[in-house]
């Protein structure tokens, strides 16, 4: 155990002894004490209150991160809870390592992260007799600045002032254009292969507010195309990393983050708080939901998607008479039909190129730069350099079914009915205990690569689920696939065929891996 909450005084000598290892040539400890003042008020003592279970697991995680990050031999942290007096030890951190540098840095990392992430509240008792719960805010985390420190012995002391001179020089931009950008709010959905260039370019251009939506944690397989992130970031939430990246690139940009995909109705509401939305997910369902929310809220949307060496780009202006995604493809295709980076493969510059094009379209819309006034689907083939622009005839799309807004509202109503299809479970034992029969929709290769860990009641590849539906009982059934997309689609198909008690494991096997 590397982390402990202690309700009694801490024996620091014992903690130090436990970190002694023959291979350690350096040991570093940090002690946090209760001091007699905070923000100008005299403090008599304080109470620490922790959300114990969460603090315990998060504390363990932080120390494990420090050990892995700096390669120290061992590390440990103890945090007090309960009533403390001035001078009492509140927190103790120790790290031993082959060399002193790692020990210092691991120690610093642990205390900074503890202060930032641990669900511990402190109630200060003032000499004046009153007391106040104090929240932990604005923690400087030294390790976030390690990279800069290595390159610049003296970090700049003056606050950073953005220099937009290279774009101000453009006649079509100028001071007026820059002011438009500073006043604009752009929502970027997905901080992956497309989202990285979009977020970077819009932050660099000085867009006033960037909203970022992403529920995923960074995986090592993302790094070849998701250029904002580092190897050391694997396992962290992408929105956290992206927000940090924007703050580092252009501190004048305000960032708002959402760590879960926007649900249908919430999307309409959130879109209304932005001037423009850029859809950068690898999820067809999200694209349709974004197109619906865009036309209902009247918010322009820039869509792009990639396949191996090529991509598609469409701007939905969300004005009457202009086409939406459903004008082209009225119904969401089955996940098996559309491919994905994981299954079909992709070269990093493909989303990089399409993402850069999305950023360009976003800036053109915000600055009202010259652009074609008719809507089109743009196909970009990066192997043969061909770009094909196919005009979309809005009169042949949703207009034949009551118009984009009406079609989008119907889709939203359907999404509301289907919302209860997705069920989240921390582990599959929980689903079995709840009485579900598991149906694994993955193909044999995927199952071999990542077994469920529990016995599936049936294995039926997602493409065969409807034709083999007679093999299914009345349920309740929980359909399972890698990401939750194929299973949700299959559940909708089965419900349309009359199955009542069929659900999909939200986030698929991947979500189990993250939660477990």
């Amino acid at each position, binding site marked *: 155990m590397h982390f402990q909450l202690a309700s009694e005084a801490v024996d620091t000598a014992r903690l130090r002894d436990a970190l002694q290892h023959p291979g350690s040539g350096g040991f570093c400890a940090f002690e946090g004490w209760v001091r007699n003042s905070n923000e100008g008020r005299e403090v008599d003592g304080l109470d620490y209150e922790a959300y114990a279970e969460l603090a315990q697991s998060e504390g363990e995680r932080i120390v494990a991160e420090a050990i892995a990050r700096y390669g120290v031999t061992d590390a440990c942290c103890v945090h007090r809870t309960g009533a403390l007096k001035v001078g009492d030890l509140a927190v103790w951190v120790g790290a031993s390592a082959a060399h002193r540098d790692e020990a210092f840095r691991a120690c610093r990392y642990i205390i900074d992260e503890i202060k930032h992430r641990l669900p511990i509240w402190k109630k200060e008792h003032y000499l004046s007799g009153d007391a106040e719960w104090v929240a932990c805010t604005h923690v400087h985390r030294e390790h976030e600045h390690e990279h800069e420190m290595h390159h610049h012995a003296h970090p700049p002391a003056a606050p950073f002032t953005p220099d937009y001179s290279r774009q101000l020089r453009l006649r079509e931009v100028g001071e007026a254009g820059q002011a438009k950008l500073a006043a604009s709010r752009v929502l970027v959905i*997905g901080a*992956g*292969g*497309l*989202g990285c260039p979009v977020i970077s370019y819009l932050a660099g251009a000085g867009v006033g507010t960037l909203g970022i939506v992403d529920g995923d944690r960074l995986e090592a397989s993302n790094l070849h195309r998701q250029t904002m992130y580092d190897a050391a970031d694997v396992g962290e939430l992408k929105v956290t990393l992206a927000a940090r990246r924007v703050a580092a690139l252009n501190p004048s940009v305000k960032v708002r983050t959402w760590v879960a995909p926007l649900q249908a109705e919430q999307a309409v509401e959130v879109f209304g708080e932005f001037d423009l939305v850029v859809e*950068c*997910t*690898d*999820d*067809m369902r999200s*694209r349709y939901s974004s197109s619906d929310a865009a036309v209902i809220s009247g918010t322009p949307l820039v869509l*792009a*998607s*990639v*396949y*191996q060496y*090529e*991509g*598609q780009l469409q701007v939905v202006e969300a004005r009457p008479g202009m086409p939406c995604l459903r004008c*082209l*493809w009225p119904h969401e*295709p*089955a*996940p098996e*039909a*559309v*491919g*994905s*980076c994981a299954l*079909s493969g*992709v070269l990093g510059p*493909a*989303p990089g190129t399409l993402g850069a094009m999305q950023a360009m379209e976003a800036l053109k819309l915000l600055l009202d730069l010259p652009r074609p006034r008719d809507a089109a*689907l743009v*196909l970009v*083939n990066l*192997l*043969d350099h061909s770009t*094909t*622009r*196919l*005009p*979309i*005839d809005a009169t*042949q799309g949703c207009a034949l079914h009551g118009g984009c807004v009406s079609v989008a509202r119907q889709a939203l109503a359907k999404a509301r009915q289907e919302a209860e299809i997705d069920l989240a479970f921390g582990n599959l034992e929980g689903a079995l205990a709840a009485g579900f029969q598991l149906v694994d929709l993955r193909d044999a290769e995927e199952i071999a690569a990542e077994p469920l860990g529990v016995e599936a009641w049936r294995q039926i590849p997602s493409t065969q689920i409807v034709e083999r539906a007679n093999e299914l009982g009345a349920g309740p059934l929980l359909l399972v696939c890698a990401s939750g997309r194929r299973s949700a689609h299959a559940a909708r198909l089965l419900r349309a065929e009359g199955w009542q008690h069929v659900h999909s494991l939200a986030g698929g096997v991947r979500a189990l891996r993250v939660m477990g």
Partner: protein
Amino acid sequence: MTMVNLQYYAQLREQAGIGGEQVATAATTLGQLYEELCARHDFSLAADVLKVAVNAQFCGWDHPLRDGDTIVFIPPVAGG
């Protein structure tokens, strides 16, 4: 027979193993042509999930073929 130039995108390009080809066909509509191509290249996608464009204009599957047409088949893609 009608001579047409075909371009394949995404999954179709991958399944055909080529980005495009010139074919002589007895088909008279886009729908018939796609059926012919499905048999030849073992395409897995049904026509109703695709978009098709002739000479850079989206068309319906009943659109007639003419000599020299450039026909583009476009599947929806989701990668990002």
